[in-house]
């Protein structure tokens, strides 16, 4: 049987494959049957969980509505996907070729990574028109993942092959063209895979910001008040199917490409450190200042270039004015602080709980490998589900109190964190585990000595990754369900046409997210530095 699972026997391998797939199919059927039973008899949250057959029936009735909504969302998502990823790959190349550009753009990159897309969705709708807000938000949602993947892929090359290029007088551009780009392909494709569901989510969130009649987001908003769980589930499942399909397509392409590009032997050389500005303190300070100023300058240019009336499109100064210089400023500050006091604690608690659960499950999966094997497909599946598809469902299941916010935060933190941790831990070389075992260490001791320390870099990476997601989750829940906190303030200000407040909430939520992120980065450097470990991407 072990042979069959290893696939080391040709025939056994095929049998193992069949067995695995059969097990997956069986589990799927069991889940469907149980779900049908629970739904039929309204056993979950007073009928908030409809039976699959009911969802299908509803879907059939609504079938005339779907095409136009799907096409509209797909349009925005794909245009944004193309534009965002093209920019991301070019930017990644630029950052690898020029360390100065990379340092200067750090502020912009962190801002784009941290921005809870729902916070800027009303702003985009105010300042742009037609499909533009959806395309831009979808593009922004893709940019960071693909840019990071590109930089990682381009830098993690086999230095020995780059040496061959340089030995024939090739410069940075030749190394880029002949080695880096091709060797980065699998990593970039991996990035596109993750970016695809992000683009769908971005396009849908932009629909929330207003304007437009078509699109799954509009459909969802329009159906939210009608207490028809089956339809909400249908919309959620369709959105998930779109994102999942995009994910699959890139997974298949990347499987094709990956085969040939693995280095044949293990490289031993460390990539050279790239320190822009060198030891020059003045240059370093200038770079940091530039990287902070650049996002503000871009914002200012964006607003000025669009020529939208000043009342609607605020500059950084406009936000400052709104908060500090006007007669209404104290009231605005009070509202903002109250919203922050509602949003921040629940974000922190949810994140901590989600991360802790992911850490425990991932580490203990070393002891019970079956846990990861059973759980990983579910976790990966949730990654292709646009957040927006799940939140209305959780609202249906849990009501509109604080518990829904908490659960949303936990779930948006838990799954990506678990994936990052489990994959990180699986990269710990077997040999490192065999040493304690060879000396007769117990499973628990081995975990304490190897697995837990080895997974620390991944815990930090997971935390960095989930900060903006957690804030986004909380704000969407507040916007759609609980009527509290920053998300609600944003939605309210939209209703009252309180432009100053819209821009202020957007700015503050980005700043909060950046502050969180930077805190994690500092803690990470401290802790890992003391342990002599490398940060994980």
């Amino acid at each position, binding site marked *: 049987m072990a042979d069959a699972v290893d696939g080391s026997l040709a025939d056994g391998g095929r049998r193992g494959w069949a067995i695995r797939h059969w097990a997956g199919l069986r589990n799927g059927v069991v889940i469907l049957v149980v779900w049908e039973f629970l739904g039929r008899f309204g056993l979950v949250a007073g009928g908030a969980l409809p039976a699959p057959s009911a969802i299908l029936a509803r879907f059939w009735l609504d079938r005339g509505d779907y095409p136009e909504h799907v096409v509209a969302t797909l349009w925005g998502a794909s245009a944004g996907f193309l534009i965002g990823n093209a920019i991301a790959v070019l930017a990644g190349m630029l950052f690898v070729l020029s360390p100065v550009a990379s340092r200067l753009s750090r502020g912009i990159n962190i801002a784009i990574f941290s921005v809870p897309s729902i916070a800027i969705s009303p702003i985009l709708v105010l300042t742009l028109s037609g499909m533009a807000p959806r395309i831009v938000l979808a593009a922004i949602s893709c940019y960071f993942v693909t840019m990071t993947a590109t930089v990682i892929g381009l830098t993690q090359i086999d230095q*020995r092959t780059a*040496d061959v*290029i340089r030995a*024939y*007088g090739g410069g940075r551009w030749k190394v880029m063209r002949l*080695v880096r780009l*091709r060797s980065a392909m699998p990593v970039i494709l991996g990035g596109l895979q993750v970016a695809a569901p992000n683009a769908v989510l971005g396009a849908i969130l932009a629909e929330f910001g207003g304007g437009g009649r078509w699109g799954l987001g509009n459909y969802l908003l329009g159906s939210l008040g009608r207490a028809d769980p089956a339809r909400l589930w249908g919309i959620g499942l369709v959105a998930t199917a779109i994102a999942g399909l995009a994910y699959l397509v890139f997974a298949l392409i990347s499987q094709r490409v990956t085969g040939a590009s*693995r280095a*044949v032997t293990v490289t031993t050389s460390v990539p050279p450190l790239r320190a822009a500005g060198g030891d020059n303190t003045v240059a370093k300070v200038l770079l940091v200042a530039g990287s902070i100023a650049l996002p503000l300058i871009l914002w200012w240019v964006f607003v000025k270039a669009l020529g939208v009336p000043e009342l609607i499109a605020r500059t950084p100064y406009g936000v400052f004015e709104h908060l500090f210089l006007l007669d209404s400023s104290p009231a605005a500050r009070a509202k903002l602080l109250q919203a922050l006091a509602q949003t921040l604690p629940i974000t922190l608690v949810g994140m901590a709980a989600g991360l802790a659960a992911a850490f425990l499950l991932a580490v203990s999966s070393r002891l019970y490998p079956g846990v990861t094997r059973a759980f990983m497909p579910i976790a990966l599946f949730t990654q292709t589900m646009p957040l927006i598809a799940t939140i209305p469902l959780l609202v249906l299941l849990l009501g509109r109190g604080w518990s829904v916010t908490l659960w949303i935060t936990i779930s948006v933190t838990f799954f990506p964190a678990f994936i990052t941790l489990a994959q990180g831990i699986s990269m710990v070389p077997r040999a490192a585990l065999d040493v304690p075992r060879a000396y007769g260490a117990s499973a628990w001791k081995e975990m304490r000595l190897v697995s837990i320390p080895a997974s620390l870099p991944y815990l930090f990476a997971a935390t960095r990754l989930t900060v903006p997601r957690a804030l986004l989750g909380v704000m969407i829940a507040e916007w759609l369900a609980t009527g509290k906190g920053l998300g609600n303030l944003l939605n309210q200000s939209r209703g009252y046409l309180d432009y100053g407040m819209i821009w202020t909430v957007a700015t503050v939520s980005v700043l909060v997210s950046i502050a969180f992120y930077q805190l994690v980065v500092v803690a990470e450097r401290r802790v890992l530095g003391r342990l002599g470990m490398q940060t994980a991407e």
Partner: protein
Amino acid sequence: MSAQRGIRIDNVSKTFSARGKRIEALKNVSLDCAPGSFTALIGPSGCGKSTILRLALGLEVADTGSVEIGGEAPRNATSAGVTGVAFQDAALLPWRSVEANLALPLDVLGLERARYAGKIASLIELVGLAGFEKALPGELSGGMRQRVAIARALVTDPSVLFLDEPFGALDQILRRQMNIELQRIWTETKATALLVTHGIDEAVFLADKVVVMQSRPGRIARVIDVPFERPRRTNLFSDPRFHALNDEIATVLHG
């Protein structure tokens, strides 16, 4: 290649600092390889042999001293297509076939592949890989990959040839064969050759001059001339004078 070029390394020192520790890889090393000569570098692991090669190729910059190839700075010589190199690791691009890997220097130098098609085919033949033109490196054995790297070093008809332990992964018989082939190629092209090796017999068989190095700091202990007439044949391996010279080098190496 028409013009002959020598290698001149003048009083070069190179220190690496890695994680706070400083390693004197080379200290006051001077080495002169006359145009058309064959020089072998031999020495314990970590004594700086590869570093000398990397300095000569402009991949590292010396802290002090100077390196010249045919009177030019290394970067100029390499980008003019004067040099050929086979590294210690084969360093093949995993997504390129054997053929395409051989063409890599041409791509870097901006030379037209089509004009070298015959050259590439004959080199593949020479290193005994006929039939593997379309194979990817992952489908080859370690020794086969090394032979691809050797063929790649020769593709531009270099007038200065750097070889860093190119035969390390080959068995004894194949190694002898490749030694004889290398001697033939070298005689035909009149290239200046610098070979790093761990095999004393290989060094003596091939070189005009064997440079013995020692480590910590990396330095040249002695330069020993090899007097045997050329072309050298396999019966040299059983010549008593050959063994005497081998023993002399071994004494310097271990002393």
